[in-house]
């Protein structure tokens, strides 16, 4: 590891002042989302529904910029030289590799907001900012061994410790007061081409995080002790040993062991049952049926899975794409809803899947209650089976001459988080409608590894939307199409909804927009320097509700004055 370079004066000073105030009590994570944003989805429900009500449809027209901050990544200095004022804090450098990621800095994750401090991440980088004005408190940079630097979904917090993962397979703990590294643990195998992007989730004394991989390696979720980083449990999303449940849904053990199913986004947590509920990724090889067992379900890939948070033992699962064939993960963060179905109160979990289908599930039992198609164009399924699962049409996997399939690889929705409002009973889902030609390019019956064996060329044809789905029926109550020159349907960024009756999100043209959650009508907007790249969030500091959003390497906070 590189020796950390700490600017003693500045960091020490800020840590002394803030020492008593930064700490996050794990019990606070059980509270509904309000003044702070202490975990990936704001709270454990995944709803991204804030109780804050200062900003409303009546006053949103006066919403204005409070501050903006451009984040400097990497080992170098600030984005631009600072002509006046104090020198920014030095960078704390860690890492076991010799490489420096120099790709574009894009914030694609959640920004923690705890006790007046914001914690922001991008691959290999963490920043701590003052929530009042975005002032930089400290920054941490990790020299990498490599790995897929595609995004980082944010940090997790336990007392005064921060946790985040790196593309080269480390879980890292920092002291939240100073940014100094506490420890780093290798939690996945770099030789096997694992890479890590997820935000960890803290539940009590568990730090839970899942894997990513584009080669044929098994996915897993693991839990670590926040003090020591020691492994507490590990749950594989595919069978890896003889006799493991689900093995009968694979061609053989070797196929299952190479079966993917990576849980690469954070899950939700239900304190009543102590179940951690999450989604799993696609089976691998992604586009090859025969090596996995033609027509076999390939459990527990592309499923919603519930595990006991203390043991990692599975309680139930529901597979949203049996034998998935297009790399359409079901890893999207599921959302817990306390609702009513057929006049009876029910504890539910809902998800809009990358495959274009929406599901309402009983979160205690895994019983599926509602399935609907929320994408207007998806054509890969023949219909639903008796369990309410879409049934794959093999003719729409791919074809030597090309198969016209909706959706393109990005899917009907993807990692940009959905939001749910108990006020409207609607789930708001960033939605893409589009087509692509999928060409089979590998005739070897053994197929290809990973994402190989097919080539895909997009043909557009649809549009980018926010869909508002009634959880009781699966009906799309309204759908706002972002106006663009032509319908190329790439989908939009994540969403936030508030008790102030506003839905916040970015469009596909660089605007940050507040919508009426009942109708989808835009009520306010501001154009940013780039498209929104994460999901908007909100927090209270100095008595003011702020709405915070990232666009590439720049954060914007809006408030009323």
């Amino acid at each position: 590891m590189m020796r950390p370079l700490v600017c003693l004066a500045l960091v020490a000073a800020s840590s002394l002042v803030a020492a008593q105030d930064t700490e996050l009590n794990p019990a606070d994570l059980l509270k509904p989302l309000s003044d702070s944003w202490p975990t990936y989805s704001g709270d454990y429900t995944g709803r991204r529904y804030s109780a804050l009500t200062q900003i409303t449809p009546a006053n949103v027209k006066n919403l204005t910029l409070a501050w903006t901050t451009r984040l400097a990544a990497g080992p170098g200095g600030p984005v631009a030289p600072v002509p006046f004022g104090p020198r920014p804090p030095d960078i704390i450098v860690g890492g076991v590799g010799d490489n420096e990621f120099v790709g574009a800095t894009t914030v694609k994750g959640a920004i923690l907001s705890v006790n007046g401090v914001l914690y922001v991440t991008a691959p290999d980088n963490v920043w701590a900012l003052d929530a009042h004005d975005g002032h930089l408190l400290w920054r941490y940079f990790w020299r990498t061994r490599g790995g897929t630097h595609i995004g980082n979904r944010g940090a997790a917090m336990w007392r005064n410790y921060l946790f985040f993962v790196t593309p080269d397979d480390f879980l890292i703990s920092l002291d939240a007061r100073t940014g100094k590294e506490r420890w780093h643990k290798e939690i996945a195998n770099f030789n096997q081409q694992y890479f890590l992007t997820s935000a960890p989730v803290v539940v009590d004394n568990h730090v839970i995080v899942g894997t990513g991989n584009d080669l044929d390696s098994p996915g897993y979720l693991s839990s670590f002790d926040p003090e020591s980083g020691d492994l507490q449990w590990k749950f594989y999303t595919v069978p890896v040993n003889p006799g493991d449940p689900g093995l009968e849904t694979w061609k053989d053990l070797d196929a299952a062991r190479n079966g993917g199913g990576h849980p690469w986004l954070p899950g939700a947590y239900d304190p009543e049952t102590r179940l951690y509920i999450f989604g799993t990724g696609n089976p691998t090889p992604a586009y090859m049926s025969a090596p996995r067992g033609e027509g076999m379900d390939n459990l527990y890939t592309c499923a919603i899975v519930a595990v006991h948070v203390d043991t990692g033992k599975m309680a139930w699962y529901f597979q949203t794409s049996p034998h998935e064939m297009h790399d359409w993960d079901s890893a999207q963060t599921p959302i817990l809803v306390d609702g009513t179905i057929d006049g009876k109160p029910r504890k539910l979990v809902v998800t809009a899947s990358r495959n274009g289908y929406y599901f309402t599930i009983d979160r205690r039992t895994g019983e599926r209650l509602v399935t609907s198609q929320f994408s207007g164009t998806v054509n890969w399924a023949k219909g639903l089976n008796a369990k309410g699962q879409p049934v794959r049409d093999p003719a729409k996997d791919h074809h030597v001459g090309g198969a016209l399939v909706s959706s393109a690889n990005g899917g009907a929705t993807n990692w940009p988080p959905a939001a749910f409002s108990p006020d409207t009973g609607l789930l708001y889902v960033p939605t893409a409608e589009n087509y692509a030609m999928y060409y089979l390019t590998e005739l070897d019956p053994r197929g290809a590894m990973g994402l190989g064996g097919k080539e895909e060329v997009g043909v557009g044809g649809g549009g980018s939307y926010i869909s508002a789905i009634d959880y009781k029926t699966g009906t799309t109550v309204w759908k706002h199409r972002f106006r663009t020159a032509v319908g190329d349907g790439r989908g939009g960024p994540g969403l936030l909804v508030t008790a102030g009756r506003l839905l916040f999100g970015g469009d596909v043209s660089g605007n940050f927009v507040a919508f009426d959650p009942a109708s989808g009508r835009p009520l306010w907007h501001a154009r940013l320097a780039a498209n929104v790249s994460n999901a908007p969030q909100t927090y209270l500091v100095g008595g003011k509700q702020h709405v915070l959003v990232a666009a590439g390497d720049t954060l914007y906070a809006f408030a009323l004055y």
Partner: protein
Amino acid sequence: MRYIHLIALAAFVSSSLAASAQQPPTGGRPTSPTASSGQAGRIGGAGIGAYPTREPGDPAVVERGRNIYSTNCAFCHGADTRGGASGPSLLRSAIVLDDKGGELIGPVVQTGRPDRGMPKFPLSNAQIADLATFLHSFAVNGYDSSRQRPATIVVGNAAAGEAVFKTKCASCHSPTGDLQGLATRVPDPRALQQGWLMPGSTAGRGGGPVPARPRPPTVTVTFPTGQKFEGELERVDDFVVALRTADGGRRAFRTTDGTKVDVKDPLIAHRELLPTYTDAEIHNVTAFLVTLK
């Protein structure tokens, strides 16, 4: 697994095209990493990363290892190590991926796996080292290059395609008019197929040349007063529209006050036809169009 790119799409596309200069256009990332383990470097680009690479083995050692492999292993694991009738692929095996110089492969080979039907092979440690060098000579990554590629994407029936053309395309296009010599102008059948399905569109993943958009959309902006502006659409969103008028001037308007925006997409027919095609119709039309030399 694969993620959607929102902001970095343009950058991603350009990098994937750069990658496909060396590799078939899988729409993925370079198969040869830009930096290797143990060597300082800078890695960059949206989603582009590097995984451990192995120093190229001495060709003579690789060849020795190949001979040992062919004699002892290929029958079950396939001549190319990708698996055979009774043995799994070694290429993606965790043991092989973790192995450096035979230290993990050796024990498996020398003791066998009787529970899975693999006999033991009494190879010497030197032979194991050669075998490992051979196994490590293959590139392994999630964007696996296709090896047995189909000779052509043209799989349809030209006569049936001509019939489809007459019902779905002939109101705007003619084989003896605008499409005369099409297959000469666009000799790659896949580019031709993509081009007739949706000229110029490259949304989604994957490379491959696609003909440029023929004409941009036009737009009519109508104010509540009834005043109208028409022109070539430059950009539009829910709040602002910009157009170029016939005299070359640029006009931009805020549209949140009841102003009507009517975009006319010259490709609307292509867009509306998309959901109506069967794959067989697409293949047949392409088989017909490739005859228009």
